[in-house]
């Protein structure tokens, strides 16, 4: 009897395996490799990397969805992400397949026309001690992009590994433990593949165990061997960098996390990354006096062949308020009167100031304030930034009201540059908070910030938390082209297209399309959760699709007290919504 039952169970199990085998085992039979040439010049119908191209513009040359047609958009399909919790997903599309990563490093390949699952990869993460709560939360916080190269999908994981999968079936090819997650290291942003290398940057550098080292790194794309690493808080080759920390030795330095995927200029084989704040946040606790604490809050230009620093520019010296400046570095070329200008344009930091640099030399060109901020007093013509020293605490517990807040201002949500209108569209939040240093004994798996933050509040006289800022950009100035203000805060990255539109969304679950020229909202659709992640677009069989991620990130709830009339959902809602135009025939 027992044996018979066992046999029956065995038969049933076998049948189930066979059935699921039929459903999942086919994979993709005609996957065309993503070549280096395609990465350098992405086909218009694809979305091959984080922001669509090496220049990080977040711009698509597709124009079937445009000012005239956008009103006809219909839902093509939707898909729930594989995990609840906070995420900032950046879907990619190639070969008619959408690759979506969500938190806990789960990757899914979906048929981009129908949303049908093709394969799924679930990374096995080590379980951390519950007392390491900052690290556990941090590892889920920023999860954006993966990379496509040849017939592979490349991801960087919360347990500090590089993982390489077969694009056709999601099977693991190789993985490499890059740094020690027991110290606090985790990857929170995706890699960039260029020049035969996986270029990545580690996060978790504000966790106690990581003292002294925060890295941008290059690994051989085929073998995983380390080619070079650049330490953002300890550069033995630059005495000025060392001096900028005062008496503080490397083993008591933290921060400098480059937590947005960098840009790449193939012409000069240079990669550009932004760097986050110093730790501890307050110079009183940090011990660095009036030092500028390089290379925190800077743009770094690194030689991709060697990892050597070509130049740096510091956007916010002497940070005392956790106002990271790691956000998207966008490469812009403009031909003016026969002269080619090679710009780097960015709103690098939480305080929302836009900058343009000459990206070959690092020379400062201009800056432009956006949201209310009180930490930078002035910027000289040579690019020297003067901070507001009145906001520096000289005693433990000394409190100041600082704008922008630790949640931005600007946060991870990336802006887009449109070559069509030569404008940079930036999603921003108006917010301030009090900051007061505390004296804290650090513990394993937890942060070294050592401050008490007050709740995020609107700046005096401001009633709208959300700001979509369009900046007209050229080599000599950036000027406001238009502003769109809204009660709810902006919670997604934005996408500009050759259809003359820019797409983005807010905490009130509304995805919108703005006219790039006028700022007029020409389409709006309410979805299931705060709009999130990185909206993107692609084309299959002559039809243009628009993909909108929804769900919570660490931006969606930070200032909901500024718009209490708009209740946020308590469900996670993590989903992908895909729209397209009705067939014309």
């Amino acid at each position, binding site marked *: 009897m027992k044996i018979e039952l066992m046999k029956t169970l065995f038969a049933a199990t076998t049948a189930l395996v066979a059935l699921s085998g039929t459903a999942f085992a086919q994979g993709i039979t005609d996957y065309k490799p993503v070549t280096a040439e395609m990465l350098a010049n992405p086909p218009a119908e694809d979305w091959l990397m984080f922001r669509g191209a090496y220049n990080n513009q977040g711009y698509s040359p597709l124009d079937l969805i445009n000012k005239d047609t956008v009103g006809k958009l219909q839902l093509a399909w939707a898909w729930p992400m594989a995990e*609840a*919790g*906070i995420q900032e997903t950046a879907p990619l599309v190639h070969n008619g397949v959408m690759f979506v990563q969500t938190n806990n490093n789960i990757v899914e390949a979906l048929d981009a026309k129908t949303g049908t699952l093709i394969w799924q990869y679930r990374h096995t993460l*080590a*379980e*951390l*001690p*519950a*007392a*390491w*709560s*900052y690290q*556990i*939360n941090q*590892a*889920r916080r920023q999860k954006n992009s993966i990379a496509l190269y040849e017939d592979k999908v490349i991801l960087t994981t919360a347990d500090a590994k590089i993982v390489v999968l077969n694009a056709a079936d999601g099977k693991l090819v190789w993985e490499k433990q890059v740094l*020690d997650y*027991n110290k606090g290291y985790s990857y929170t942003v995706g890699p960039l593949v260029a020049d035969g290398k996986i270029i990545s940057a580690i996060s978790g550098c504000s966790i*106690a*165990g990581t003292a*002294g080292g925060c890295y941008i790194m290059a690994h051989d794309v085929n073998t995983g061997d380390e080619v070079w690493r650049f330490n953002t808080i300890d550069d033995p080759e630059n005495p000025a960098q060392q001096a900028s920390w005062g008496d503080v*030795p490397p*083993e*008591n330095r933290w921060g400098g996390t480059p937590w947005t995927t960098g840009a790449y200029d193939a012409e000069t084989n240079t990669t550009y990354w932004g760097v986050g704040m110093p730790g*501890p946040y307050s110079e*009183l*606790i940090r*011990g*660095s006096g009036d030092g500028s604490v390089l290379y925190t809050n800077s743009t770094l230009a690194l030689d991709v062949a060697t990892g050597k620093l070509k130049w740096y520019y510091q956007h916010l010296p002497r940070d005392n308020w956790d106002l990271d400046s790691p956000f998207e570095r966008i490469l812009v070329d403009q031909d003016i009167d026969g002269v080619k200008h090679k710009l780097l344009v960015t709103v690098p930091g939480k305080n929302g100031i836009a900058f343009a640099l000459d990206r070959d030399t690092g020379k400062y060109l201009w800056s432009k304030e956006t949201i209310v901020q009180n930490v930078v007093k002035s910027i000289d013509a040579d690019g020297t930034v003067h901070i507001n020293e009145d906001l520096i605490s000289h*005693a*433990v*517990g*000394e409190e100041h009201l600082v704008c922008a807040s630790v949640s931005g201002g600007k946060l991870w949500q990336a802006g887009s540059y449109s070559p069509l209108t030569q404008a940079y569209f930036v999603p921003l939040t108006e917010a301030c908070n009090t900051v007061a240093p*505390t*004296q*804290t*004994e*650090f*513990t*394993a798996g*937890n942060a*070294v*910030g*050592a401050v*008490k*933050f*007050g*709740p995020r509040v609107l700046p005096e006289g401001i009633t709208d938390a959300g700001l979509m800022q369009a900046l007209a950009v050229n080599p000599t100035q950036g000027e406001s082209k238009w502003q769109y203000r809204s009660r709810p805060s902006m919670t997604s990255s934005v996408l500009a297209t050759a259809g003359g539109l820019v797409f983005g969304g807010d905490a009130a679950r509304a995805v919108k399309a703005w006219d790039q020229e006028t700022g007029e909202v020409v389409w709006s659709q309410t979805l299931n959760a705060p709009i999130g992640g990185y909206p993107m677009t692609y084309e299959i069989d002559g039809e243009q699709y628009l993909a909108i991620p929804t769900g*919570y990130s660490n931006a*969606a*709830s*930070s*200032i*909901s*007290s500024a718009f*209490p009339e708009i*209740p*946020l959902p*308590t469900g*996670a809602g993590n989903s992908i919504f895909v729209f397209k135009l009705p067939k014309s025939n």
Partner: protein
Amino acid sequence: MAAGFTDEQAAAGQTAYNSNCAQCHGRQLEGPDAPGLSGSDVMQNWDTAGGIYDFISVAMPPSAPGQLGEETYLNIVAYIMQFNGASAGDAPLTTDTMASVSLAAETAAGAASMAAAALDAGGAAATATPAATDVPQAFTWGKQLPGGLAPDQMAPAAAAAPGVPQAFTWGKTLPSVAN
């Protein structure tokens, strides 16, 4: 020593916390979908009961920020303190007293037991976990800062390893079954 809150407040706070906060901050205050609310560093950074009250009574929960009412927010602060190891007393926590209730002082005794509770609640003990005393500290740790702790208050913390009784044979090599 006055603990700054009552048993009744902490009990009511537990119910309110589990209903309004645990979805993101975790039943064991561990997160992970919002910052964890347990641990000595968390207590030190919020500084006082008033510090955490001032934040949550404006910003939390995101679906109804500031809408739970003063009594409920005070109860939730009491529960967070109790979870972190503080003991209840006779005097209730009020908006008048909260700014003088030190989270670090009230919860210090409970730090080790809190770590053990977190492990019991499902957290894994990591291999290669550095002992608490090995964690790198700020350059200024141990130095007198204006308004800061006296250096003798900054002695290394006791190791967080839980003092759970072990089997008589623990630590000894035992025979194993050969394959």
